[in-house]
């Protein structure tokens, strides 16, 4: 009897297991992307995280101009062409005709995209009295405000149904790149008004309607987001039929799902898994130079870092090649400028400080510190795209500096606290970094080294240099890219000479895919585009 029962149990277990055996990947033409988190919402104007942009503005919306995937070149999107007035203050966009909006159960668009939608999308953010400006407390147009758009744009006018004119308060060359950013996505005016008439104005922010390559289907909170290809997409229907974001917060689980075929592509692999991914015949690992920089900032308001010689000495005492090998495991390149080489205006003629302990010692003596000094060195408590291991890096730097008599005490705080304290100028020397939001050099120089950014806290070196500031401000007001590039090149020379930072490295980003994914191109600004991707038939 006993064995019979046991036998039945075993049989049953086997039967259950077989019946439930591994789930297939998905319906034909469905691409599953294992994303790293849930979007904060489905509105491109409210939020600032890459996770939300990947899920919202990238698949479902368009901007007037966009970045060509893989580069930071600005290409036409909802605007077919544009002209910039010679004074650099007026941008006129000619809009594309025949662009369709998506539809859903509550809304069927009666007209194509036109200038009214551009004005609506802009003034919803810019005008505090706009009927759709604000619904809930704490909801802000964060990026719009962070980019200081109110101080840049004076007014937006409709010239005719397919022409809009942006008048700026001052010449601002990076404006075009700003317009390619996610927050500048174009919404449907008709949809918002229809939802208000129905008495549910909020619905337009929850169930997105855009002009993008994919239409929203459904969202199961923290689990899946479903999209389908938009048949009438102005840029041509995507090759895949459905796109599914399978939200998987744990990087190990994402990798496991990629291996078992539960997803075709995954976000943010763990650096430790890269080697194994490379060897897996079922996977392909794409890589791209990151639009980023990792650095040590010296607080120039504090002794001894108010002395340029000290900053230069520590630059020379730091062995960057060793850091690149040990911390980045070779996946990146030594940084000599605050901007990465893939960004236009990168000044390759700048000579980096050589790793020279003797010279560093000499400079330190010249500065009045022949026996060195003691200093707190803050290191990153978290992994960031521009720095995989802050602690390891800090230990290497500590050992380097020790050689010239500088005793660094390693200090860190919880990540939010780290940033908060850095903004008050408490730091002496600290590790930090930046990932660019758009392809404009202005997006590195001004928020990280500009005088205004000392106040806002983004300039953690608290370095405000008149010649540098004049150059970058002038560059922002110069319309021609070639002329701007020259100014930025000069600015980089000043940064190197003044040494408010030790520029450490530009890291490489990785996107692991299954082999059947074809035509995927990594984006320069770290977004994930699936518009032109196809799935090969599996054998």
């Amino acid at each position: 009897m006993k064995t019979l029962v046991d036998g039945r149990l075993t049989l049953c277990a086997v039967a259950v297991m077989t019946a439930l055996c591994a789930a297939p990947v998905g319906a034909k033409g469905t691409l599953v992307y294992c994303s790293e988190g849930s979007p904060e919402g489905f509105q491109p104007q409210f939020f600032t995280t890459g996770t939300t942009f990947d899920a919202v503005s990238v698949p479902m919306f368009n901007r007037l101009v966009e970045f060509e995937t893989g580069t930071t070149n600005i290409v036409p999107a909802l605007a077919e062409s544009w002209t910039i007035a010679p004074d650099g203050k007026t941008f006129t966009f000619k809009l594309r005709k025949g662009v369709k909006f998506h539809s859903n159960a509550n809304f069927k668009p009666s007209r194509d995209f036109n200038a009214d939608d551009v004005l609506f999308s802009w003034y919803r953010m810019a005008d505090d009295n706009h009927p759709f400006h604000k619904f809930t407390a704490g909801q802000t147009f964060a990026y719009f405000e962070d980019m200081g758009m109110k101080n840049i744009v004076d007014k937006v006018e409709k010239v005719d149904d397919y022409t809009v004119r942006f008048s700026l308060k001052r010449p601002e060359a990076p404006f075009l790149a700003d317009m390619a950013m996610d927050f500048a996505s174009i919404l449907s005016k008709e949809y918002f008004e229809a939802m208000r008439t129905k008495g549910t104005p909020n619905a337009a922010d929850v169930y997105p309607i855009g002009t993008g390559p994919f239409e929203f289907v459904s969202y199961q909170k923290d689990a899946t987001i479903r999209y389908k290809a938009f048949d009438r997409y102005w840029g041509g229907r995507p090759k895949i039929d459905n796109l599914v974001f399978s939200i998987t917060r744990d990087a190990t689980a994402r990798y496991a799902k990629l291996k078992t075929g539960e997803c075709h592509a995954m976000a943010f692999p763990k650096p430790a898994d890269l080697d194994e991914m490379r060897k897996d015949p079922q996977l392909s690992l794409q890589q791209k130079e990151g639009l980023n920089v990792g650095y040590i900032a010296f607080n120039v308001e504090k002794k001894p870092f108010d002395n340029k010689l000290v900053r230069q000495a520590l630059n020379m005492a730091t062995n960057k090649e060793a850091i690149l090998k040990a911390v980045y495991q070779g996946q990146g390149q030594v940084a000599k400028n605050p901007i990465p080489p893939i960004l236009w205006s990168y000044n390759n003629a700048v000579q980096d400080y050589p790793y020279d302990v003797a010279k560093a010692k000499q400079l330190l003596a010249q500065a009045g510190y022949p026996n060195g000094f003691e200093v707190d060195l803050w290191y990153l408590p978290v992994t960031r795209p521009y720095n995989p291991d802050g602690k390891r890096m800090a230990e290497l730097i500590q050992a380097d500096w020790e050689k010239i008599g500088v005793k660094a005490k390693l200090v860190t705080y919880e990540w939010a606290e780290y940033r908060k304290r850095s903004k008050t100028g408490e730091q002496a020397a600290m590790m930090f970094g930046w990932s660019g939001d758009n392809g404009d050099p202005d997006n590195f120089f001004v928020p990280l080294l500009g005088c205004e950014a000392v106040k806002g806290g983004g300039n953690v070196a608290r370095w405000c240099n008149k010649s540098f500031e004049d150059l970058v401000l002038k560059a922002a007001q110069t319309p021609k890219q070639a002329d701007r590039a020259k100014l930025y090149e000069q600015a980089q020379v000043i940064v190197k000479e003044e040494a408010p930072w030790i520029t450490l490295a530009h890291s490489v980003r990785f996107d692991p895919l299954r082999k059947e994914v074809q035509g995927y191109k990594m984006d320069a600004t770290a977004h994930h585009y699936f518009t032109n991707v196809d799935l090969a038939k599996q054998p």
Partner: protein
Amino acid sequence: MFGFILRRVALIIPTFLGVTLLAFALIHLIPGDPVENLSGERGMDPARRERLLHEFGLDRSLPVQYVSYVGQVLRGDLGTSLTTHESVAQEFATLFPATVELAFFALLFAIAVGLPAGILAAVKRNTFADYTVMGLSLTGYSMPIFWWALLLILFFSVYLGWTPVSGRIAVQYDVPAATGFMLIDSLRAGDAGAFRSALSHLILPTIALGTIPLAVIARMTRSSMLEVLREDYVRAARAKGLPRWRVIVVHALRNALIPVVTVVGLQVGLLLSGAILTETIFSWPGVGNWLVHGVQSRDYPVVQGGILLIAAIVIAVNLIVDTLYGVINPRIRHG
């Protein structure tokens, strides 16, 4: 009995106050704040920072914030998430069924395996079976959940390919969330494939989450059974010549169950806290996963509201368990 329940209900009020205070204090003790979290590496204009702190009500002193929060809770309002701008109660309600579904199966698994294992160990005391059960349960109890979960994934999903890695259902099934319980919803949708997929997605998280309660139940059952088996009435029953299984099941087990039921009740709290790790690893869209993210983004209303609701449920379950004693053993009556 009625008086007992009343007394227990009265005790709930200070417990709740304590929970709100604790949740409030803990989340505010963590460095950083939600506004800081919004700004990232980019600096934030101090005026804008002030304005946001004011809008979130974070520019007031902590005691004022606490009193206003308790007042809000008493009016039945748990606030709005600072990241998604959605109602905390609504988000909880959306996600809670997933957590319940997982906890239910984990508990079922723990009882279904733990109870017989404990009985077996007691009846076969000091034999190989006993040592095996106790050894395994000690191992299970000491295993960190996240590590155990990853081992399960690597072995069953990646190596053997038997079970899916994570999630609640395969992506090709778009089951409308009517009840929020995936098994029920997929049955309602009338799709056998979806139901099978949902069931297969439950296996690994159930084992990962159920392991510790299983170990606790097995050990508790064993020691409780051993105690009861030594009692005179059990000896008397045996002496009467009753079959062995009848003595064990009817005479011994029923009495041995009382401490076990208490332990099972306590496991509910453990299951909900264990769910935080299990859900994160298995991408299980429940409240545990949601709370972790709330803590990371310093979403104060989410963390406070989530803890409060979970505490309420744990308290309610324990109250039910206490009253269940009387049902299991008529000798115990709360007078």
